């Protein structure tokens, strides 16, 4: 292969080199001019735009959550407060892969794996720069677990926050309700600005009803942050002026509820399923509102785990069910004094007139027997005696004479069949039947036999324990009723001024003869006297109790069957009821007790009411049992 031989031309090479150098030099200048042009574009033409961006980069609004208002009982004891708790938080904008982060947190046990999808949705719905609580309460072990692995979780932090704390645990839980993590649903209803930085919201009970008062208003502060979102206090060497608006704490609320009485009420119901409501008849203030079994609301505020919640939800005794407000039961014989009042008011009966009770009642032209609880009958009874001995036959006849429309009218006036209007949500209206109601519901006519059994609080009639307590309070106040309420005063968080809320008087029940109140109250007093169905409850008491027992059928007996408690499944046994007020002459407390499948009102429910009376009237809070019956006393009557 021939190779052309070239001779090195030094002068030519140098000229070539200089040419290339000049070209390169010009190219360098041109390219750097391009850079300078770009700089001019950024710094002069678009200067304002980038200034805005850099401003947004460094100043951030940080919400300051308000302190939730406290809840005090009647005596100023704090029953819902705020204590510091460690919570795990995630700031969405600092986390690149939320799903992955949550799954890794679940893998080390800091988040429940079952909650990951829900948390992911919650994080997506939240604002990008605001921390979302993943778990409300961390144990020391959790904190240690997280501390050693924190570097694996950028954007996830442990924060100290004030968390709701109910020092009395499950006591009064059904009145207080609880707060819990804000859910997706809640986010749709609330103003995100007011809740900025808040991690919980009232879900039930007072916490829910008084959410607006208790929550307060969020504040904010502008903070200087660096690229990691960490706070810094100065920019280079220059301090920066930043705005702050302090949060407005929630208002404190004061209850008429007495936590000591409440505890006695719940202790006396312990082991049963039931409710006890105690109301001050002079104001409508609820002194105790117990629904047993109860639950520990602290579990919710600190983030209840799925299995914990499932065990509460699936418990056969339904601890989450507020029996006091939402349980509708046949009121049984407790309605008898009120039926008697209706009879007097409509002039359907003379209180002194006696009826003969032979153990059953029949409607004219019918062979059906409406049995009395006492098979052999009560003999001749007048109105007071009929109340005292709870004679069914007397009230079957009375109801029949009155007719369902007048019964409906009279009982409605005492608050049956409609919510009492207590200041917590979820109350059920119960049921006070009428011809109209039956026509609408069943498209059927009303039968006289249905009126007869309403006369002893059975049949279609249903009432909540709260309605019973309210009705007995109205009777105790002789018609001057008040709407039941828990909250009696509110303290403004800023001014510390306590605003007392006046009792809400209901339209008084004006009887044509006010003396009629006296008749039924005397009947109720006789209930606790010798021969009455609850004579034991009065034993050893220094004050007079006016009362009425009740036993409500859960399950209907056939015409000729006899009820045999031991043979019937526990859950089909009768409900025990008891209503009472004391002192009878100047009532200070009205009580309704319901014990599901408890059996007899006089023997099961009445002693519970007695303990609450002793606590409230005498300050006897210890569990002093009702003294046993003296030797030789007749056995407690089996009362309907």
């Amino acid at each position, binding site marked *: 292969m021939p190779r052309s031989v070239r001779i090195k031309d030094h002068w*030519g090479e140098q000229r070539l080199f200089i040419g290339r150098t000049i070209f390169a030099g010009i190219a360098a200048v041109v390219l*750097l001019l391009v850079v*300078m042009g770009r700089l001019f574009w*950024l*710094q*002069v033409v678009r*200067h304002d735009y980038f200034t805005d961006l850099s401003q947004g980069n460094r100043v951030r609004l940080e919400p300051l959550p308000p302190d939730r208002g406290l809840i005090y009982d009647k005596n100023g004891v704090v029953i819902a407060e705020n204590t510091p708790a460690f919570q795990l938080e995630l700031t969405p904008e600092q986390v690149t892969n939320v799903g992955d982060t949550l799954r890794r947190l679940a893998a080390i046990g800091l988040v429940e794996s079952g909650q990951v999808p829900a948390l992911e949705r919650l994080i997506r719905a939240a604002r990008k720069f605001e921390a979302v609580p993943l778990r409300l309460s961390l144990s020391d072990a959790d904190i240690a677990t997280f501390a050693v692995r924190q570097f694996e979780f950028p954007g996830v932090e442990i924060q100290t926050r004030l968390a709701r704390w109910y020092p009395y645990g499950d006591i009064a839980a059904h009145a207080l309700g609880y707060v819990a993590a804000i859910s997706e649903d809640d986010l749709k209803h609330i103003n995100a600005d007011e809740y900025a930085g808040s991690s919980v919201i009232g879900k039930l009970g007072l916490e829910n009803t008084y959410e607006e008062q208790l929550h307060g208003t969020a504040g904010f502060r502008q903070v200087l942050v660096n690229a990691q979102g960490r706070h810094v206090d100065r920019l*280079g060497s*220059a301090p920066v002026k930043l705005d702050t608006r302090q949060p407005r704490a929630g208002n404190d609320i004061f209850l008429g509820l007495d936590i000591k009485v409440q505890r006695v009420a719940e202790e006396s119901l312990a082991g049963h399923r039931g409710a006890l409501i105690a109301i001050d008849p002079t104001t409508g203030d609820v002194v105790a509102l117990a629904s047993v079994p109860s639950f520990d609301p602290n579990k919710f505020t600190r983030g209840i785990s799925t299995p914990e919640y499932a065990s509460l939800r699936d418990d056969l005794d339904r601890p989450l069910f507020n029996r006091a407000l939402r349980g509708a039961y046949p009121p049984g014989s407790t309605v008898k004094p009120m039926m008697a009042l209706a009879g007097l008011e409509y002039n359907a009966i003379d209180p002194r007139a006696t009826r003969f009770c032979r153990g059953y009642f029949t409607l004219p032209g019918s062979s059906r027997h409406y049995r009395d609880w006492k098979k052999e009958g009560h003999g001749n009874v007048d109105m007071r005696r009929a109340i005292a001995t709870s004679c069914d036959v007397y009230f079957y006849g009375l109801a029949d004479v009155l007719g369902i429309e007048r019964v409906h009218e009279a009982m409605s006036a005492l608050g049956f069949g409609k919510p009492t209007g207590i200041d917590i949500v979820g109350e059920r209206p119960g049921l006070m039947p009428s011809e109209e109601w039956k026509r609408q519901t069943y498209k059927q006519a009303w039968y006289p036999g249905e009126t007869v059994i309403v006369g002893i609080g059975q049949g279609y009639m249903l009432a909540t324990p709260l309605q019973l307590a309210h009705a007995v309070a109205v009777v105790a106040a002789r018609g001057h009723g008040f709407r039941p309420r828990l909250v009696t005063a509110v303290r403004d968080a800023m001014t510390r001024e306590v605003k007392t809320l006046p009792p809400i008087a209901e339209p008084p029940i004006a009887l044509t003869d006010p003396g009629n109140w006296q008749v039924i109250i005397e009947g109720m007093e006789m209930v606790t006297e010798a021969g009455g169905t609850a004579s034991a409850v009065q034993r050893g008491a220094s004050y007079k109790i006016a009362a009425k027992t009740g036993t409500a059928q859960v399950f209907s007996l056939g015409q000729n069957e006899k009820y045999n408690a031991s043979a019937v499944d526990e859950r089909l046994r009768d409900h025990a009821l008891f209503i009472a007020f004391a002192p009878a002459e100047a009532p200070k407390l009205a009580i309704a007790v319901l014990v599901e499948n408890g059996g007899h009102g006089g023997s099961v429910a009445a002693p519970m009411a007695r303990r609450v009376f002793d606590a409230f009237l005498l300050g006897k809070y210890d569990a002093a049992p009702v003294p046993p019956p003296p030797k030789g006393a007749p056995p407690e009557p089996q009362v309907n």
Partner: protein
Amino acid sequence: MLYDDGENSTARRTLTASSRLLRRLHLDGPLLAALAAVVAFGLFVLFSATGENMPMWTNQIERLALAIVALVLLAQVPPAWLKRVSPILYAAGVLLLLAVMVHGDVGKGAQRWLVLGPLRFQPSELMKLGVPMMCAWYLHDRPLPPSLRDVTVVLGIIAVPALIIAKQPDLGTALLIASAGILVVFLAGLSTVVIVLGLTLLGGAVPVAWHFMHDYQRQRVLMFLDPSQDPLGAGYHSIQSQIAIGSGGLFGKGWMNGSQAQLEFLPERSTDFIFAVIGEELGLLGQLLLIGLYLTVIGRALYMASEAQDTYARLVCGSFALTFFVYVFVNTGMVSGILPVVGVPLPFISYGGTAMVTLGLALGMLMSIAKSKRLVQS
């Protein structure tokens, strides 16, 4: 008059003395002065860009001192000797690169460090000098413009280390080394036809390359074209750096008062992105001043290269001068968002040692070669 005269002559005497000293040390006064200005500017900015970090600052001064020592020492080395060691240096560099490949230290996810006793260094830095020197050595006694065969050989000389380094992976350094070598060929007079042909081929290769790229690589390219696609991910550097520069305006927010830099929104604020700190705190004027200083350095170096008489000297000096320009252009282009983000420091200003020492060596060599030629000539 006499008094004044006396003072003037004192000053003149001092000047003459110092220029004599510079000459004796084979140093170029104007180039050194421009460099000193860049270094002073850099130290001023770095104090703020490190967040007033004194240890980092003194560390940088130590490295600068080391770079200056390297520069002065290299300036004393006879150019003939440099020419002679070129192939040895290149061969040693390639061997070391291979050694790194086999058992090098992994730092920041890339394998580029070699540990020799107490020393930890990157052979790829060595190749920044070795490759242009080798190219120039190969071409210096061949007739120029180079024949196609010579060009092919030189491209091979460039490709071997460049490919090894690209595999480390350190694409930035590989590109710098390749460009240093290619600049030698360009200065040697590579035919315009070949240049145009090469550029056309490169352009034609883009769609083909796109077809063979991994998804993440395509993602990177797209990110460069539109950084707002992923503001917290790959586009973050570019966006934050443009915010820093743009919010600086004509005069800047003031030294140590750049919020982007001080609050660390700007990543790599003291290293690759320090030019954005200058833009934010000292404004357009600060940046133009620095670019002006750099242009002085580049211009003076190119002038010195063109004055050299020997082909080897010309090619090496010209390549070093233009490599210096490539550093400046790629860095400022990347920081201002007209070039993709590649790890190229701003010469003599970015925090960090190796690149600075390498540059010191290069400029030392440049002075040695250019000055000694002139001495021979005179």
